[in-house]
């Protein structure tokens, strides 16, 4: 269906075309990845995002990574994750703010926060005051435990 649309397009609007193309690619990917749970991994530490992505891919998840909250919100619009795994203490948009945004967009998405910091109670309390409570996993967590955690989620 999408192919037909592209074929019938006569305006050479490169930007639009690219957007549509990427949308098509995403949809195409979506088809090939069907059945694999989708995880959006967010952390301002690149290395953590990259390594977790590789590990989860290897464990049968479909993963998209983001290095900050805004990028993650944008990515979620296309990716529609089943899971959000996010760091808490990040610049600009923290993990709780991100989780609240995602929960509003996709109430079905399971949210897991992970943090290596003890002093984040203030951020979590802000979430609570708005009526949002999220599960928190301490860092570091062994990859096998993380995988088990994601698999046991409904």
């Amino acid at each position: 269906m999408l192919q037909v649309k592209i074929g019938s397009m006569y305006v050479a609007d490169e930007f639009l075309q690219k957007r549509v193309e990427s949308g098509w690619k995403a949809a195409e990917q979506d088809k090939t990845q069907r059945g694999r749970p989708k995880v959006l991994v967010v952390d301002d530490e690149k290395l953590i995002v990259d390594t977790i992505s590789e590990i989860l891919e290897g464990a049968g998840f479909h993963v998209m990574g983001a290095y900050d909250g805004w990028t993650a919100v944008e990515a979620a619009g296309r990716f529609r994750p089943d899971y959000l795994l996010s760091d808490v203490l990040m610049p600009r948009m923290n993990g709780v703010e991100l989780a609240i945004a995602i929960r509003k967009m996709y109430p079905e998405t399971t949210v897991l926060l992970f943090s290596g910091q003890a002093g984040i109670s203030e951020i979590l309390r802000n979430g609570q005051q708005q009526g949002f409570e999220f599960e928190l996993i301490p860092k570091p967590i062994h990859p096998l435990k993380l995988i088990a955690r994601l698999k046991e989620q409904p």
Partner: protein
Amino acid sequence: MEYGTIKISSNQPGKIAPPTLDPRLHLAAIVASSDDPIISKDLNGTIMSWNEAATRVFGYGVDEIVGQSILRLIPPELHHEEAMILSKLRAGERIDHFETVRVKKSGEKFPVSVTISPVKDAGGRVIGASKIAHDLSDRRKNAESRFQLAAIVDSADDAIISKDLNGIVKSWNEAAYRIFGYTSEEMVGQPILRLIPPDLHYEEDEILRKLRAGERIDHYETIRRKKNGENIEVSVTISPIRDETGRVIGASKIARDISDRKRIERLLIQAEKLAATGRMAAAIAHEINNPLESLMNLIFLARQTSANDGKTNTYLLTAEQELERVSHIARQTLGFYRDTNSPTEVYLHELLENVLTVYNSKLITAGISVDMRFNDLHKVVVSRGEMIQVLSNIIANAIDAMREGGTLSISTRNVISSAGDGIQTVIQDHGTGIKQEYMTRIFEPFFTTKGDLGTGIGLWVTKQLVEGRGGQISVASSTEKGNSGTTITIFIPFSVPAQLIEVGQE
């Protein structure tokens, strides 16, 4: 001599007589100027003369009293004294410093010391008596104030000790006995050095040097030794004692037992340390846990891509195990954070069951069986996370103490007490027990009996959390062989402290 001259000239204005001319005038002046009443009477007890001091002390004027009976000055119940005095006088005897009571014109009675001498005529015949009465009211007052001072000294909470300039104890009050354990009999006459630990003996030389120079020592904090050999922390104030001429003859020493205050000070410092450590831990945690997360992932990935049976795989496996150790200690030491959830209604036995589930594998490995008797019929309002921390700290300690297995008894029940109703949880292990000398310290921060493995935070945090909830925690322990073990009792009242409700409503 000049004094007499002035007195005489005032008696006889205009006429200046050399004092040596008439000894009688001289005597009259002395009598007139005496501070003590001087009275003369005849052998019938009739008053013949009356000086100014007599007027001042007894209140009668000369005109009122001269010619009257001396009995007017004697309280009726002592009238018999006069007969005795007169009989002695007739025999030519003198009465020295006879202490008795006399009465003033106002009717007020007062203590006096009287000296009565017979007055003889030229032929040596006794014709009367002179009587010098010394008012003792002041002396009584002095004595009273001395008794009062002694009572104050004895009822003081601080040790009050006096010593001479050789450092020999001269007096020792009740509190000195209470604080140092020596009785007054044991210490008076002994050198004060007995109270000073040998390594501080030099202090006494310095103190004596300052005292001889008339200096005072204020609130000097030091260590002194009790009779039982125990050291105590004291604050001493030492002042020189002077004689009438101002010469320093000794010193008074007031010593206050400040062990309790020092203990509290140390606890405060420790609490400060802990707060600082907490802040630092939070900052470090982020910088350690994030790289640990990456490392763990990287090693995991490296292991997946290396040959399963190769040496590299073995190395990576070991590296992963070592990293697990680091992560564990980082979580333990850097990870204590407070539950910020609002308090909720829970059954304590449910929380206990949760905690026991977590420790299940440890309990099995250590060969510990758990005897549960849950009879808490009511829920309590607690912060789940905090209460889980409390219960798991205690259960973890119990497991650590029971290296050789045994029974861990846990019970809950409703209690009704004068302090309020609530739930009592008793956790009793049959482990090694806590040594008596550690019992008072186990709730102090950074105190641990587990050596390098302990952080000394567990029970301290536990106590803070229980008391913060308005509850109580107590401990009983025995290290007696065959009967050793520790029992921790926690009481959580149903009523929630006001400040917690406020926080919950915020």
